């Protein structure tokens, strides 16, 4: 017994020593870093990472709420092109002119577009500060120019939905969106006026155009800056400028009308000025974008069939290839078969590219601007319209009116998010007589624009709400 106690004694001391060793050796183990996230201060520590942050801007712009379809389609069913028949009550509110400030889909559009602006501001502010001698000035200039283009594009887009257009109310003094142009946290800026946003977009695009690349359709580029300036000038009714900007693109041999309508998911097609490339790995993000909403069940949600009014518009001239080649019939969200667009047919992976700016729009813009301005910069309006009609398999016209030009524009750009502004800037109601809520859809009516989201105003009460919300 005696020996066993001694052994036990030694053993006990050994144990206590072991315990002391264990307890003193583990404290530094709690210094852990995440495996898959990069610390903010590391991102702008070298050129490669900083360029990753530029790529990140495009990634954020790929959100359905930004360039990939949710925002664009919501304006289509707010207008006369599309009938929304899905389950989302927040989308239904927009259709019914019953939108509430708490509409979470609109909150998402605001939020996601400001994500792009925030990501761009970080690049613009930090790229000049990167300490990396291999990060050349040319690389830096292009990185900043791409960021500034994407920021200008997003500001232009959201200015169309969150404030009244130039043609109603107090014009350039209509309230638009807050113009946040620095990455400093916690600023408190009131809503800028539409004039301020337009001036910012114009100045920015003209300032960066020479730093942008000219040989790409899938990144911010010189042509895209010109095309956006053309669209903007058209919205501002600066007819000569609009015709000139559009003419520049049409005369640029890098771009030309595609021979048919198979260009949508072909980023190399000369049709595209800027197309946002989506693929199966990284594409439309929610299933509520171009592909998800516009394809029939079961591949898509079957939420956005053609409205009867749009069907009638194509039916007025049978044989229109823009209808015959770009439609499909299948079960809609409610079960019955409906007619859907076929511009975004890849409904399993939602990998269809987003058409952001394409050369067809430039023909339509040149035609409309020349017609309204009484000019024929580059071509007559009739020539431009007949060029597009020929591609669509339709016979030449002998004369055009504004109504004909707008009708061609509608049939070319349906489901691409242009219809709403094309109506409003021409002082036309969003809905046609006989369509529901026609009265509420007249230019200048409260619910033709979206509310400043309630959750944003909860945090920034100094942002004035739009009337009626």
């Amino acid at each position, binding site marked *: 017994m005696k020996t066993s106690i001694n052994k*036990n004694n030694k053993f006990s001391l050994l*144990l*206590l020593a072991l*315990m002391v060793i264990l*307890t003193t050796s*583990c*404290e530094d*183990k*709690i210094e852990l870093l*995440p*495996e*898959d*996230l*990069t*610390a*903010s201060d590391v991102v702008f520590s070298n050129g490669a990472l900083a360029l*990753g*942050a*530029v790529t*990140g801007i495009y*990634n954020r712009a790929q959100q359905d709420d930004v360039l990939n379809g949710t925002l664009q389609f919501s304006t289509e069913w707010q207008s006369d092109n599309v009938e929304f*028949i899905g*389950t989302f*009550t927040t989308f*239904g*509110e927009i259709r*019914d002119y*019953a939108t*509430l*400030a*708490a509409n*979470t889909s609109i909150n*998402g559009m*605001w939020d996601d577009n*400001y*994500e792009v602006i*925030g990501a761009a501001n*970080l690049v613009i502010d930090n790229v000049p500060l990167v300490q990396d001698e291999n990060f050349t000035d040319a690389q830096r200039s292009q990185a900043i120019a791409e960021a500034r283009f994407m920021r200008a594009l997003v500001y232009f887009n959201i200015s169309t939905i969150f404030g009244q257009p130039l043609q109603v109310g107090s014009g350039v003094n209509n309230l638009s969106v*807050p113009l*946040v142009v620095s990455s400093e946290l*916690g600023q*408190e800026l009131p809503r800028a006026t539409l004039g301020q946003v337009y001036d910012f977009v114009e100045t920015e695009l003209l300032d960066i155009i020479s730093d942008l690349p000219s040989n790409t359709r899938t990144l911010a580029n010189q042509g895209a800056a010109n095309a956006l300036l053309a669209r903007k000038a058209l919205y501002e009714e600066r007819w000569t400028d609009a015709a000139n900007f559009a003419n520049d693109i049409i005369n640029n041999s890098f771009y030309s009308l595609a021979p048919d309508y198979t260009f949508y998911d072909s980023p190399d097609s000369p049709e595209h000025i800027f197309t946002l490339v989506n693929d*199966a*790995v*990284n594409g439309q993000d929610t299933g509520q974008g171009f592909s998800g909403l516009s394809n029939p069940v*079961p*591949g898509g*949600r*079957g939420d956005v069939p053609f409205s009867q009014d749009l069907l009638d518009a194509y039916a007025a001239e049978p044989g229109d290839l823009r209808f015959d080649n770009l439609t499909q019939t299948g*079960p*809609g*969200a*409610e*079960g019955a078969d409906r007619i859907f667009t076929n511009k975004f047919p890849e409904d*399993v*992976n939602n990998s269809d590219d987003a058409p952001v700016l394409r050369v067809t729009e430039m023909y339509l813009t040149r035609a409309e601007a020349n017609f309204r301005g009484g000019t024929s910069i580059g071509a007559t309006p009739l020539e431009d319209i007949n060029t597009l009609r020929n591609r669509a398999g339709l016979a030449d016209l002998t004369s055009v009116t504004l109504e004909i030009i707008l009708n061609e524009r509608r049939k070319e750009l349906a489901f691409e998010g242009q219809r709403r502004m094309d109506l409003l800037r021409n002082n036309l109601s969003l809905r046609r007589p006989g369509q529901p809520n026609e009265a509420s859809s007249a230019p200048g009516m409260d619910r033709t624009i979206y509310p400043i989201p309630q959750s*944003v105003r*909860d*945090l920034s*009460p100094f942002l004035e709400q739009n009337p009626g919300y």
Partner: protein
Amino acid sequence: MKQLDYKLLLFVFFLSSIVFAQQKTVTGTVTDGDGLPLPGVNVVVKNTANGAQTDFDGNYSIATNKGAVLTFSYVGFSTKEIAVGDGSVIDVQLETAADELEEVVVVAYGSQIEKKLVTSISTVSNSDIQDIITDSPQNILQGQASGVQVFSSSGGLGASPTINIRGTSSIGSNTRPLFVIDGVTLGDSFTTFQQGSGAGINPLASINPNDIESISVLKSAAAAALYGSRGGNGVVLITTKRGNKNGRVTVDIDVNTSFATITDTPDLLNSQQYIDFTTLIRNGSAVSAGPLTDAGGEFDALDAVLRTAVSQSYNFSVRGGNEKANYFIGATREDIEGIRVGDNLERTSFRTNIQANATDWLTATLNANVSHNRFDRVPNENSFASPYTIALLQRPDVEPFDENGNFTTTGNVGGGNVIAQEALNLNLATTTRIVANGSLDFNLSSLLDGLSFKQDVGIDRVFTENQTRNVELLTPGGSAANSVFQQNRYILNSILSYNKNFGDKHNLSLLAGYSFEDNQFRNIQASGTGFLSDAQQNIESASTFPLTSSSGDANRLVSYLGRATYDYADGRYILEGSVRRDGSSRFGANNRFGTFWSAAVGWNISDEAFMDNVEWVQGLKLNASYGTTGNDRIGNFPSLGTFAGNNFNGNPGLTPASLENPDLQWESTTTRDVGLTAGFFNRRLTFNVEYYKNVTDNLILFVPVDPTFNNGLNGVNQNIGELENTGFDVTIDAIILDGSNDGLKWTSSLNLGFNKNEVTSLPETSSVDELGNRFVDRTGGSLAFSGQRAIEGFSANSWYLIPYLGVNPQTGDAEWLDASGNPTTTPVAADRRIVGQANPDVVGGFSNVFTYKNWSLNTLFNFSFGNDILLTSRAFTENPISGFNKTTRVLNVWQQPGDQAFIPSPDSPTINTFNQNSTAQLEDGSFVRLKNVTLSYSLSDSLLEKVFVSKVRFYATATNLLTFKSDGLDGFDPEVSNGSDGNDAAGQDFFTLPQASTYTFGINLSF
């Protein structure tokens, strides 16, 4: 033959006694209270070293003298002393020592006898839970412990219930308590593969209720302080069954079969009603939607997705051992069907608990549990693939089959066709979990009397694979996805303890320990689309690969802990203090370490001399405690400012992911707790009441920031804000009839948890509502909408909605109340106000057990009062303008002045806004539920003597037999929780599958 030997032997002994006169040999048999032989009983001649032990049949033989005293002693039984008389046969029956050994309660890192307990702990024993039939282990606490609120989150299988101990203790972090099984803190923050909203895979599904011996719920901070930064939500300590020490081998077999049906469903429109209603509405001048085409069919989707589910459970265990070693081995196999089609769960689990008292200074223990779940899943709630959701929305005139009986696509609702989906698609989760700990317990009395050291190492390993395969019909080209999640958890505990009596009356226990935990998480995901054939099962055969990803995550915790307990005069006065210092990888560089502590006092008043003559009260005890605990459930790297990796057009990119806060630290809960226990009528009536006030400060909030001005980011984690939970926990136990007269025994137990939750302070930078109150929006889980807020001065789960008035009988307009109190047809966000709360005022349970001869009847009610539920799904099922099916409530449409209608006029613009979120969907969530009724019959001993069986018990159990709830909940279940974690709104329904009524028939056998 045996009897003959025995008599012969007696005869021999009798002769010997004559021959040797005084020196004689005494023999006999020692049995227990049931008359079964007890092997290994120590038989000692008092005050001598002369002793013997009983053999396997309980027989002993010892040489002694007339007049000597024999002492019979055995662990767990009262010691008996018998004087040796003239006879030489002494048969002894030992009584179990229930009256002498005081009830032992499992506490943090140890155990304590109930009398000396000074902190707030509720216990649930095996007898309380043996009749509960559930696939979610958390549910066994439902209605069983005061102050413990358990809400089932869905009637679907594998749903993870919400547990709140003494109210909602956090806003931004998870409020789930910490689960500890045999000393191993369980990981429960791993990926649960949520499909749709609501519950993912229950992280505790591997716990087999049949293995549980007892549960201790540590409710106050003082009780949970030894769990430090993780004790803030309370701690649930589960102790599994041990082996026997009495040499007996017990085999238990339990087999049962269950039949389950849904408790309630809403009444839906049939095809004709649907067509008529929709046509009526769409003819209205205010409605945009186009005319409806009648699909011409008639299909009861609800009937097609629900079923009577039949389940089987088989449980086997064997326990045995002696004072040297003991074991418990258990195995369970369950085939469970859910009440929804396609919802199936197969569980297989094994447990081995072995303890070896190797030497007088070393005890080795191994507890190991291996479980395997094969879960054929069904998406929940907010998913077009959720069968129940779709059944409520699917147009009744659209059939899922064509005229030849082949599946068709039926519209977007239901991923094309929810019936086909369940019949054809694969959606399978297989989980293997190993929870094991081994410990060496060293008795160091040789070094210092009363000193011992325990080294414990545990692992908790989870391996889950979720596999889906969608067929061509429902996903053109077909698709497949695989996700593999692994948790590797390692826990090390070193505990030094010291117990010593000084003099007669001073008793001191000390504990010091060190603990280290390491959690590693791995996640691998892949998906493929574009298959040639549905027969190709795996991604390998796909043509496009949208997702290929792996990720990793980790956290670590290093801790030092200590406790001192002193009691005087066998617990007349008790003092206890504990402290834990935690260092966690989760928190800000400036605040890695936090210290938590507690102090408690107890006074057993009945032990005082002045109580000697007080007959009417027994066991009167007063205790009070103060303590602090924390909550660290906020993800793994909540304090860092980061960019996340992503890509565009094949190029890698980075985008802002989070804003930094290096000062981030734990939430801290401080509890003040006072308890009073008393027994009356010889403890036939016992009463326990506890008052508590929990103040949780340094609340970790994801404080929303306006993305407009914060680079697109939505918030930052901050320690800011404070909330209070105050309340009473009351437990009353009564033995109403003790069976002494006619054999009828009736015991009754009532527990009540009263709680008031108030947010006392929120950040200055918080949003401010129209009335000037600061608030934090609760998120809606996977739902975009939540009408719930934590509001300063009010509940952390306040409903904030526009009040709905109804349809004006004169105008046919739906009317709401505006901010100034006037009816309006165009309410705006500013008209919202506080209209209720999701927290109940009181929750509890009421159980009654009746036993008469061989019969036993056990009933358990659970209840909740004072909470409101938001039935968000009614915004869909009562939306007059949608194209989807609706409940029959909508049939009452306003047509002419004077109509008391539910639905506004189709010509009123309010027909479009009628279904907006408002109090129209808010209902009183109070309920009383007959949770469990079990009737059992045990065969009598006289019957059993003839067979090789010691117990045969037949039982029938009914679960959720009756539910009393408000009329507004018709068709819905009062137990809902869409998104029960973190900052999610509580008490919000979104197509929550109602609970099942389950009828179970089974048999227990023991031998």
